[in-house]
């Protein structure tokens, strides 16, 4: 499965090409279904979610721009967002955005971090710089779509500790990738 092929199919789908849509589905649905199953943990719900996802792909194909993202990650993001929205509706999580963020720790040079730069694929190297359990929490949050509370339960740490872990890990990753 080559990203350029997927991008080409998306271009044709944006023109309403149903054959291209069927081919895109054939090539990409196993991955997106795998995402739904992993996050939702239920086959029926995963099938429903997959329907929503491909309806959105049909509707949004025109918004995919090749310069912005790799085609497969663009599709995976639609799938993850759909699955995470469903699971958050089913199992509500606490709101956190409006509370104070404790972002003390690695004192990054603010001027430096103020520029949104592109960087290479170095996330794996940067993950290795995190403490092992924190890296594991980051990975499981992403892959399984876990909420802060679920992560705290899984790692047997208080909720606030988990929030601090993830937020500081995100800043460390950002700082590492800009190095």
């Amino acid at each position, binding site marked *: 499965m080559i990203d350029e092929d997927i991008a080409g199919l998306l*271009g*044709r789908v*944006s*023109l*309403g*090409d*149903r*054959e*291209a849509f069927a081919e895109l*589905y054939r090539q990409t*649905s*196993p*991955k997106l*279904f*795998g995402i739904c*199953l*992993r*996050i939702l943990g239920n086959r029926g719900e995963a*099938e429903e979610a*997959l*329907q929503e996802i491909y*309806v959105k792909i*049909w*509707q*949004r194909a*025109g918004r995919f721009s090749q310069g*912005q*993202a*790799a085609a497969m*990650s663009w599709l*995976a*993001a639609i799938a*993850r967002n759909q699955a*995470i*929205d469903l699971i*958050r509706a089913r199992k509500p999580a*606490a*709101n*956190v*955005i409006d509370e104070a*963020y404790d*972002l003390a720790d690695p004192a990054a040079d*603010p*001027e430096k*971090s*103020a520029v949104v730069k*592109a960087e290479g694929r170095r*996330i794996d190297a940067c993950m290795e710089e995190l403490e092992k359990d924190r890296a594991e929490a980051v*990975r499981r*949050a*992403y*892959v399984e779509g*876990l909420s*802060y509370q679920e992560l705290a339960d899984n790692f047997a740490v208080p909720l606030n500790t988990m929030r601090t872990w*993830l*937020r500081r890990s*995100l*800043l460390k990753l*950002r700082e590492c*990738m800009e190095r």
Partner: protein
Amino acid sequence: MTAPTPEGRDFRRDEVIAGEYVLGVLSADDRRKVEARLASDRNFAAMVDRWQSNLSSFDDTYDLVVPPPRTFTAIERRLFETAQLEPAPSRRGLWNSLAVWRGLALVSLAAVAVMGASMAGLFKVPSTGTSLVAELAGKGSAIDLVAQFDRASGRLKVTPVAARQAEQKSLELWLINGSNPAISLGVLPQSGEGEIAVPSAFQSRISAGSVLAVSVEPLGGSPTGSATGPIIALGKARSH
């Protein structure tokens, strides 16, 4: 959430919120807040995009699982079936069809892009020509796009035309306001040259909320004054 500032804490906080959103740990309410901000704050949207691309290497973790065939059948039914059930569309039925509204991608009818000098190299021709034409075809698609590049102005104009078919076809553009019958705005030039001159009587009727639709018609346009062929694109006008 606060607006990003060039220095300090808010910026780092935004980076964290962008990362939390992509990880997926936020609540439903917080996710909607982030999405509202994505639509209005390009700097913040760039942070989210960057996390998306950074973290997408974790996508390799997901197994490939082939979904049951019924899922694609259901998707096609949701997207296309209502349209298919009406092969000779009675206008009312088609315009009122929810599936058509929901299902058809919004297609911009004529996009004009200003090309940077670097992209001009796409059109490899002797420097003598000032205007170049490319036909962009998709297999099985009802339309082709004709791209015209004017070297002098640096403008690239992209116009849809009916794809080559057994019989020559035209694309006809329709204006629909509310539940009123569709008004023909004219036939898109087959060559990709020129634009549609909207009859003055109809100009005032195009406003935000008007729907523009394109149908495939016999060469030269619909013989009956209402759409007779399949609607291949439709979208609502909004302020730009």
